[in-house]
């Protein structure tokens, strides 16, 4: 309960700041962005993150999954190693490199975010599938489940909470990275922040930064909720039992 109060309070505070800043209309000679522009930028921001995440999930889960297969045993250390190391690259550096390689604009930003956001999904999918007890798979095979059935009903179901945790990390990080992508002309809330920094007006920076933070918190809570609903009860009990030990 306290969790929800804090969460709600924080979101209200950030939205309050946004509305307040927008209501200022101008600071000195600088005009604040009008409300419609802030809303549009937020929508654009959401769109960048959404598109990038959709691609990252669509590709990251299969890559992570197939990295666990025997046939991939020579390729997967490279893939997983890359995913791990890739995540250590700071977002700012990543966007800088992406801008240099892919050019400027919305598309370049989506591609950059998709690649960057795919890394935790690949890593968590791989770890989640690998964590399934081999004897569970052996039992499933011995009872006559087909490979497809084992993947769909056993492996992915058991790995699902870990995979979702990867998606959650990826999304939250990408809300932030998308803001940085404002630097390469992606649009979105990052544009307001970049403008604010350029003209050194804190209020304009806040106008972009506060809704970015709110968006990250909301998406984090939303995916957390999905995670909670989707995780089978048996796995929650198992996890709780393991914590107690």
């Amino acid at each position, binding site marked *: 309960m306290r969790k929800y109060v804090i969460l709600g309070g924080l979101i209200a505070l950030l939205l309050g700041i946004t509305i307040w800043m927008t209501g200022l209309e101008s600071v000195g000679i600088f005009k604040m962005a009008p409300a419609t522009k802030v809303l549009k930028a937020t929508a654009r921001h959401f769109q960048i993150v959404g598109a990038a995440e959709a691609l990252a999930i669509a590709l990251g889960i299969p890559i992570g999954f197939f990295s666990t297969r025997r046939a991939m045993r020579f390729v997967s250390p490279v893939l997983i190693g890359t995913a791990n190391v890739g995540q250590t690259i700071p977002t700012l550096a990543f966007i800088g490199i992406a801008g240099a390689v892919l050019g400027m604009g919305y598309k370049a930003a989506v591609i950059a975010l998709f690649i960057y956001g795919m890394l935790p999904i690949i890593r968590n999918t791989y770890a989640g599938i690998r964590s399934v007890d081999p004897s569970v798979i052996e*039992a499933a095979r011995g009872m006559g489940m087909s490979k497809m059935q084992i993947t769909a009903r056993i492996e992915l179901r058991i790995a699902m909470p870990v995979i979702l945790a990867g998606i959650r990390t990826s999304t939250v990080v990408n809300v932030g990275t998308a803001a940085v992508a404002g630097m390469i002309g992606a649009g979105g809330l990052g544009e307001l922040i970049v403008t604010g920094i350029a003209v050194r007006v804190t209020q304009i920076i806040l106008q972009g930064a506060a809704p970015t933070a709110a968006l990250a918190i909301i998406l984090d809570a939303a995916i957390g909720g999905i995670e909670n609903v989707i995780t089978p009860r048996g796995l929650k009990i198992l996890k709780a039992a393991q914590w107690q030990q």
Partner: protein
Amino acid sequence: MIKLENVTKVYQDGTKAVKELSLEIEKGEFCIFLGPSGCGKTTSMKMINRLIPLTSGKIFVDGVDVMKLDPNELRRGIGYAIQNIGLFPHLTVMENIATVPMLQKWPKKKWRTRAAELLELVGMDSGTFLDRYPSELSVGQQQRVGVARCLGADPPILLMDEPFGAIDPITRAKLQDEFLKIQSTIKKTIAFVTHDINEAIKMGDRIALLRLGELIQYSDPATLLNEPKNEFVRNFVGADRVLKGMRLYRARDVMQEPPLMFTEDEKPSTVGEQMRQNMLNWAMLVDKKKRFLGWITYDDLEKSTSLREIMVEPAVTTSPETPLNEAISLMLNSAIGNLSVVDNEGHLLGVLTFEIIRTILSQESEDKKSDGG
């Protein structure tokens, strides 16, 4: 029912896990694959349901070459239980047990009734446990669910890879007993892998002893113990094989009629007379319904005129189904040295004495001498 013909398994790295193995398991027979680790027992078992592909040779299940069947269909028709149990952690006990019925597309209503039935069969309350998750059960209970699950679609054949391996010795013994009881009613054809000679003797109708991928001896437990084919078998079954052999007998097989049995209204003097005539220093006291009361010893006879008063209460009694090795340890613990065998209501059925056991032992060693000569 299951027939292996010159079955050979060579792994990619060149190791020969199983060499030219041929054996047959009759319908309803409990067959043990026994041997030290690396002997090929698990590989042999897993080739039956094609979890491990065979390199050469043929395996027939019910007269059908397993290579001609769809592997998943084949496996759904054969129960499978393993040492690490491998229950599905995200599914309830009911869903775990109903795995094969689900795969075989049984109507949904039947899953639950079937699972409940099997849970009761393995000694668990279906009302309490059907909707629990594996992580809420003790290891012993998980092991039971594992057994119930392998019986899910009532397959005629069971493959079991050390299914009682992961639990403490007391629970294991209990589960073994219960499983034997279940098997006596369901009469499945079973291939059961273990490295434990005691488990093999206790459970098996026939034992296939393997070593380095070769079948060394395939016989019933008594023959394995009494007529080891070579030095390896002799060493594997152990120096205490005579004592192990005791496990094959039950109290009812070797008990004798009580040589002297009296009711309480008898006079001690008459009892003494009988003891002298029979050269025995003990007798057994029963009530009018032949329920066992206690022991009378010759030295106590003069202490009272009532047999009831001089009677020594029995510290232990045993049931006719007790394995002889357990009966012997009870005898070693009892002051009298003899053990009364009684039924559930306490009626005296017979008595075990060290003389009888000595007789059995000497008969067995004579058998062995004549075999050797």
